[in-house]
């Protein structure tokens, strides 16, 4: 039996986090922080959340507190956004290298200046090399399901890596949608209490996160890479198990939509990914053979699946982020995945930075420009008339 809850992405994420029964949540409450951690604090007040809530003095401390708690063997959760995530940067590396299965929601918000708290994925995309597994969600239901699934993935004995679940500010974080909420017992059955591989324990002392010599250090990094490769399989398994238990499926590493006979396939993450479905439906009515591959998982990057898409279609990638001096992050990683394995053409658009609205009509214009053969290899959408 499940119930339906109508609420914003943030409060849905808070509900999911509390139902996962973390022992410790550490968070810093001030902007760019969102209502996510207020939601958890409220559950602490009502008694529904029975763990420790540590209100710390910065995001660097929030991640540090999660690292300490996770190292002591308990389940931990936190939430942050934009500059908060960037302040954590050092400790994000630390958590991943120490193989601590912390789960965190990041609300994709602009990095300033200019100050702005709308949707933009540069905050989490710039953390792609830290070793964290990264999900990008496109609906509140997907946020709920992914938060619960993330604990199963992170705490798996062959993974033991932290997981970040990102979703676009306002478009998801502050928009209410109906979400199916399973029973607590069903969640408990899906993610039983964490069994740490090791822990800080005064009765059985170990030093951990200590000095290692060069020939040993490389093994640590290599094992993280292997774990992320294994995560590609495990994410699919967890999704299948979830579908069997709860009847919901949001796609595996990619969510494929009308790709079977497509000659062009859109590739996008987050809210632009869900908006693109409307574009695909509209263009299909006009006879265009177009599909969508929404990127759910950015790390590990699903290169093999991208190659399969490239076998049958040209790709149109829309990035709500930009690696300055190169281009859109997804665009470039898609091209890197295809290199030497596919002759597919890849077109890249940068759109929606700073929370600029990207409607299905905008996406349709981008696609038609590609189909009409007028699109450049990579361009910024909305600057066609020149000017700054």
């Amino acid at each position, binding site marked *: 039996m499940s119930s339906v809850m109508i609420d914003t992405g943030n409060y849905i994420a808070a509900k999911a986090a509390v139902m996962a029964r973390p022992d410790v949540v550490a968070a810093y409450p001030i902007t760019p922080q969102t209502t996510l951690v207020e939601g958890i604090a409220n559950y602490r007040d009502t008694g529904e959340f029975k763990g420790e809530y540590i209100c710390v003095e910065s995001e660097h401390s929030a991640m540090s507190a999660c690292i300490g708690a996770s190292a002591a063997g308990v389940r931990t959760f936190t939430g942050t956004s934009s500059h908060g995530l960037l302040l954590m940067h050092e400790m994000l590396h630390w958590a991943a290298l120490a193989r601590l299965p912390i789960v965190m929601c990041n609300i994709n918000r602009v990095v300033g200046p200019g100050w702005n708290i709308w949707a933009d994925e540069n905050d989490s995309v710039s953390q792609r090399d830290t070793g964290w597994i990264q999900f990008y969600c496109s609906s509140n239901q997907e946020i709920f399901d992914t938060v619960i699934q993330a604990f199963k993935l992170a705490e798996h004995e*062959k993974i*033991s890596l932290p997981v970040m679940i990102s979703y676009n500010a306002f478009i998801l974080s502050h928009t209410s949608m109906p979400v199916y909420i399973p029973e607590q017992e069903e969640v408990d059955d899906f993610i039983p209490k964490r069994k740490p591989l090791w822990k800080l324990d005064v009765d059985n002392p170990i*030093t951990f996160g200590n000095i290692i010599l060069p020939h040993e250090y490389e093994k640590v990094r290599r094992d993280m890479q292997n774990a992320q490769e294994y995560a590609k399989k495990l994410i699919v398994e967890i999704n299948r198990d979830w579908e069997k238990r709860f009847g919901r499926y949001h796609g595996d590493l990619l969510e494929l939509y009308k790709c079977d006979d497509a000659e062009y396939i859109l590739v996008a993450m987050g809210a632009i990914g869900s908006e693109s479905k409307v574009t695909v439906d509209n263009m299909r009515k006009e006879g265009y053979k177009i599909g969508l591959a929404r990127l759910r998982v950015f790390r590990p990057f699903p290169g093999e699946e991208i190659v399969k898409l490239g076998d049958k279609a040209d790709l149109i990638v829309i990035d709500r982020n930009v690696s300055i001096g190169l281009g859109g992050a997804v665009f470039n990683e898609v091209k890197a995945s295809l290199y030497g394995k596919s002759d597919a053409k890849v077109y890249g658009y940068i759109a929606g930075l700073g929370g600029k609205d990207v409607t299905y009509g905008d996406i349709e214009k981008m696609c038609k420009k590609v189909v009409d053969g007028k699109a450049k290899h990579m361009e910024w959408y909305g600057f066609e008339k020149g000017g700054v």
Partner: protein
Amino acid sequence: MKKYNVVTTISYPTKGAMGKTGNWRVFKPVLDKNKCVKCLRCWVYCPEATIIRNKDDSVDIDYEYCKGCGICADVCKVGAIVMEREGKRE
């Protein structure tokens, strides 16, 4: 030693986990037992546990692991420990 499925950095408490750190030393603590009053301040303050406490509360220095930080010489109230440069010409 316990086997894990992941590669990470864990060490179990053991003497000299980082090897023989005595060769890091530039200055060496030299103890004058005639001046020592057995107050054990050096034993308390040594961060590396390389002051060896004997049964009669006299002390010795474990040069295999002493890194030569000089704290023992600094806290010694009677000047029984002095720091001397390693490899000094006689």
